[in-house]
């Protein structure tokens, strides 16, 4: 190594700075990879245990008189969680069917229907609920926390959760008949 080479290496970036830069860059790359991977995974998959969440409910759409509902409190019951929004036209295609299915299974006490209103305004949501005569528990997905938990891709989406809190079926898009909804519920009933 000549004298000039030695001078150049002395003037270069210290080793610890180089290591730190590479570590930061590697960290950023891992972060990007993890995020992309999560996005590509799509919604939660059947067989996944659903983490607990709390849905705040609109006044007039409470569950057994309670203003909010916790998934873990519904163990032992089949839960049908429907994401919808008043601005969503495809949601209107299944709204009446969802209500009919609720009227069919609600009185048994073994099935709970939950409506999670996604990125909506309350006045418009109430108009929608009244328009389709919906009576089951409904509330806003506050800060879109629940939809993020399910890695929801759009509305409507309906999740069928069994009595142990395990996801069994996901419907992307609207149901076309009450029978289709009933078929999924029947599979989960004890």
């Amino acid at each position, binding site marked *: 190594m*000549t004298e*000039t080479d030695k*001078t*150049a290496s002395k*003037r*270069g*970036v210290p080793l610890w700075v180089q290591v730190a*830069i590479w570590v930061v860059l590697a960290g950023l790359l891992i972060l990007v990879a993890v995020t992309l991977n999560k996005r590509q995974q799509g919604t939660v998959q059947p067989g996944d245990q659903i983490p607990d969440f709390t849905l705040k409910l609109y006044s007039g759409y409470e569950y057994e008189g309670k203003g909010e509902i916790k998934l873990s409190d519904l163990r032992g019951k089949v839960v049908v969680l429907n994401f919808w*929004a*008043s*601005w969503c036209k495809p949601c209107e295609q299944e709204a009446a069917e969802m209500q009919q299915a609720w009227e069919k299974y609600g009185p048994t006490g073994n099935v709970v229907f939950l409506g999670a209103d996604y*990125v*909506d*305004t309350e*006045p*418009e949501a109430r108009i929608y609920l009244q328009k389709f005569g919906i009576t089951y528990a409904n509330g*806003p997905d*506050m*800060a*879109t*926390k629940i939809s993020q938990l399910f890695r929801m891709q759009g509305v409507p989406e309906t999740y069928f959760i069994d009595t142990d809190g395990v996801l069994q079926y996901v419907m992307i898009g609207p149901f076309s008949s009450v029978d289709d909804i009933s078929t999924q519920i029947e599979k989960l009933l004890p």
Partner: protein
Amino acid sequence: MNKYRRSILYVLAFALLLAGAFAFVQDRIASGSVYAQGPTPTDDQVNAIAKQLYCPVCENTPLDVCPTEACRQWRELIRTQLGQGWTEDQIKQYFVDNYGARVLSEPPRQGLNWLVYILPPMLILGGAFMLFRAMRTWTKPVKATADAGKEDEEKPAQDEYVARLEEELRKQK
């Protein structure tokens, strides 16, 4: 006497009419004060706040220019809140509470969000510093190395040439 009585009745009827009219006007004035609306916020006032928000449904489109139904509802909500006297901060906070911090065009300066504000300038400054240092090493030592190299390269070649020339001359002698 009858004439006198009739006059009194006229006066009483007039007084009743006047009292009724007064009560009606009072009622109208009162109802006017109850139901009077403030001036409706203009589109510009609504959009001044809307442009600081992004609807999660339509990513990368500011709320003020977003054409979807969901965004239209949000703008109407902002108009209603402005009409009710809400401040800009209150409205933004409402949207954050209901739809999450990702609706804000500028992430709030707290927690990990600080990285967004700190990392890019730090990386740019760090990059500029490294480039500056690298350029210094590229120019000065390279020149010195080049000069040294030139001498090193020329000397042996020249020596070899001179030696060969001398040898040839010697042979001719």
